[in-house]
């Protein structure tokens, strides 16, 4: 006998993500989810951003997702910012339940911005909502300009796209104009930033965008 079910497989995750989002709202915290392949510069951008937030007087905390190790959280904690490491135990992405559990260790009442560094992966994190306000995707120019064709979902879902390692573009064949045109056709509303997290080039516009999100989302 056939029985209709009609149930979304990610529904459990989506429900927990909605509960996380309610918690963020209640505590007046803006939440950004950083996603990229391993090594694109997420942790480096987190550190640059927390320096900028210090200057802007915005208290923040960071949740670092990784398959194993606490290297990233240690790098962030060295700057005197609360950092929680979540080890996914082999899973290729953070899910809403991991964030819910991680939030036990975050004093939401004392911050206005929470940055979540997702597991380095261009595929899976795009499917799992965490309850964040904005999805921030990073791509470093050394990864090549063909990535939007290989990972369309992540590029089309991003609210902001940080094109990193611009200091290295001379040693690549990255076609910036063609790349940006493709991105516009996939995701016309995405905010793009061309930066170097090591030289600091282009980061003012990024910092301003983050401050604006915090102001708009936390009133």
């Amino acid at each position, binding site marked *: 006998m056939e029985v209709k079910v009609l149930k979304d497989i990610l529904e*459990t995750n989506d429900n927990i993500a909605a509960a996380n989002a309610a918690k963020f709202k209640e505590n007046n915290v803006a939440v950004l989810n950083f996603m990229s392949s391993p090594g694109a510069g997420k942790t480096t951008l987190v550190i640059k951003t927390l320096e900028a937030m210090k200057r802007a007087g915005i208290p923040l905390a960071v949740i670092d997702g990784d398959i194993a190790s606490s290297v990233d959280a240690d790098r962030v904690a060295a700057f005197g910012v609360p950092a929680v490491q979540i080890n996914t135990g082999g899973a290729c992405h953070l899910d809403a339940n991991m964030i819910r559990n991680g939030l036990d260790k975050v004093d939401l009442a004392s911050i206005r911005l929470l940055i979540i560094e997702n597991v380095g992966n261009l595929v899976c994190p795009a499917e799992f909502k965490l309850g964040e306000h904005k999805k921030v995707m990073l791509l470093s120019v050394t990864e090549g300009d063909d990535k939007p064709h290989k990972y*369309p979902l992540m590029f089309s879902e991003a609210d902001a796209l940080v094109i990193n390692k611009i200091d290295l573009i001379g040693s690549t064949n990255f076609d910036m104009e063609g790349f940006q045109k493709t991105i516009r056709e996939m*995701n016309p509303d995405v905010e793009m930033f061309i930066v170097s997290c090591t030289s600091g080039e282009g980061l003012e516009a990024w910092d301003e965008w983050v401050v604006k999100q915090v102001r708009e989302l936390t009133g």
Partner: protein
Amino acid sequence: MHEMTITQGILDIALDSAEKSGASKINEVNLTVGSLSQVVPDCVAFYFEIMTKDTIAEGAKLNINFIEAKARCQACGHEFAAEDMIMKCPACGDILGELITGRELAVDSIDID
């Protein structure tokens, strides 16, 4: 790549509805999977076989109904394939496509005894 999580989700939903229907055995599980959901069917089938061991779904057949990604232009109403997520309308050139199918990932129905 996250097929294990997905497969666990499928199994949880199937076992839950089977229990609600008082079933003693699940024969088939029917899924709808959008082409943008990035799920590898063979991988899901592999995990499904392992995870269903010692449950009433052991040996159940997993059927997947694939749905191609499609977008509809909000300017002219034209519908077009959107596998690449390019939202530029091939009919009028506006970048106003809105995805209408391709993100599905659901358990549609189960066949039980």
